[in-house]
């Protein structure tokens, strides 16, 4: 079994206001980023986080070699059932994601990563006012 943390540089999570969590997956080079794009499959990620696909916003950012996910907190920050005020531990759910099957598929496929382009967005509808 290969975990997402083993094929990427760093994975961190943080609250983004009281109602959102954001997770950043950092890669150390383009090859790693290519693998992460496939390994961090959105459906796989939504399942690991326990949220619906419709709630998951994804940003693929080739210039930074970062895959970013944002989603509404399953439990609003600081309410009685909240376990993690700053959303710091959500990163572990993705760090421990089993990417064995996904990673194999990625290395077998031809994947083109653009160089020196502005941030690429793949499914962006998440507009947060005045955060």
């Amino acid at each position, binding site marked *: 079994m290969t975990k997402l943390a083993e094929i990427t540089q760093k994975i961190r999570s943080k609250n983004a206001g*009281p109602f*959102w969590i954001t997770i950043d997956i950092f890669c150390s080079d383009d090859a790693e980023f290519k693998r992460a794009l496939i390994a961090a499959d959105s459906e796989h990620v939504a399942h690991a986080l326990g949220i619906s696909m419709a709630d998951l916003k994804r940003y693929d950012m080739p*210039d930074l070699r970062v895959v970013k996910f944002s989603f509404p907190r399953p439990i609003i920050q600081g309410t009685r059932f909240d*376990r993690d005020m700053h959303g710091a531990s959500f990163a572990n759910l993705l760090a421990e994601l089993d990417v064995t099957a996904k990673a194999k598929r990625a290395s077998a496929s031809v994947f083109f990563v653009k160089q020196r382009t*502005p941030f690429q967005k793949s499914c962006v509808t998440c*507009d*947060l006012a005045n955060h």
Partner: protein
Amino acid sequence: MDKSVTIKILIPSGALGLGYDRDALMRGIEHKPDLIAIDGGSTDSGPHYLGTGTSKYSRSSIKSEWRQLMQARAIANVPLVIGTAGTCGADDAVDWLLDITKEIVKETDQDVTVAILKSGQPADRVISAFDDGRITPLQPLIDIDHAVLQNCTNIVALAGAEQIQAALNTGAEIIIAGRATDTATIAALPLLRGCHAGGAWHGAKIGECGALATTNPSSGTIMITFDADGFTVEPMGQNARATPYTVSAHMLYENSNPLKLYEPGGHLDVTGASYTALDERRVRVTGSKWFPSDIYTVKLEGARCGGYQCVSLALIREARYVQNIQNWTYAVEEKCRKKAEEQVGEDFTLELRIIGLNATLGAQDLNSQIGSEVGVLGIITAPSELVAKEVAKMLNPYLLHMPLTDDEEMPTFAFPFSPNEMNRGEIYEFCLNHVMELDDPMQAFSLTIEQVRA
């Protein structure tokens, strides 16, 4: 636009109370900034602070850092601006920092002119805006009605650049602002002097966490120089460097959308921004765009009481109990809940979290492993402090002595405290995720000037 205009904003650290490198701050003062801006808080640490209108940081650490900044301001002879004073930016928190400022003025024997910008919203104002259809929900949707608004202990509106500019225009030496966007205190002056609007907001976002956008975050202090085309980032810490990577990656940090930032009066889009290293330590950014909106809105934050809480912790080391902790915990929870429902009614919640198994992520954690010991944290939340305490006291004997099976000797587990119940008092919850439309930016804010004399 005046092509030669440049505005230097010195940001001592990501927030007052976090600490910073004093040498870096003094180096910043030597670079002759036009303004010193610092953030006083955010919603980051949860609803308690807005709920109570209090500060997260200790009064003495705030006073010590604020005194140093006031002294640095006097040397530079430029305005010092703090936004979201006292962690939450409620009116009480602004008054708290104003009191500290007055003490410092007396102790240092230096008179100052202070502009006080308040962001607190009376419930009636928000209710009337709600009835007029001038309150719009943001994602994720949260339902509100008159009762929700009336029950908020504090509602604040986030000030933008316009309200900070109104305070700057008074000529005050120090501006203590209530809740404001993280970027407003930094962007206000460059925008007022005609610097590039996209650059002003983007540079403010990069600078708002101090040296977090550099290779050495703990050095704290950063200078952002704004001009007619963009901005330049220069860390003031000796070992800190800004690189195109550290600067562009900062847009990811605690932002759900790394490309757009919504502010009162419009939004920033950094999709086309380009980041160039000027040398080993400085980065130049151009190409960020500002899109003004047709309607002027300010974001609202509100907190209301979410009940009263009491917690209790048992530590379990006996191997057989550790191995069977999930079953034991279910049994304790079930017995205590049944007893409490009989005696105090059903209006409470009881939750047991197993520390050492999955207390952090709950059922979502598929890779949890048990160690040699576990903690069982009981959390009781009820409509009154009395009921929360009563249920916590009912939980006490189960946490201490409950056997796994009926036909075994009564065990005893480790309680770290006496009494073992810890009263957490009133808890709060954020209950607004909305924007409010204004005809004039100052409509929902108050600005007063005070001459503070030694």
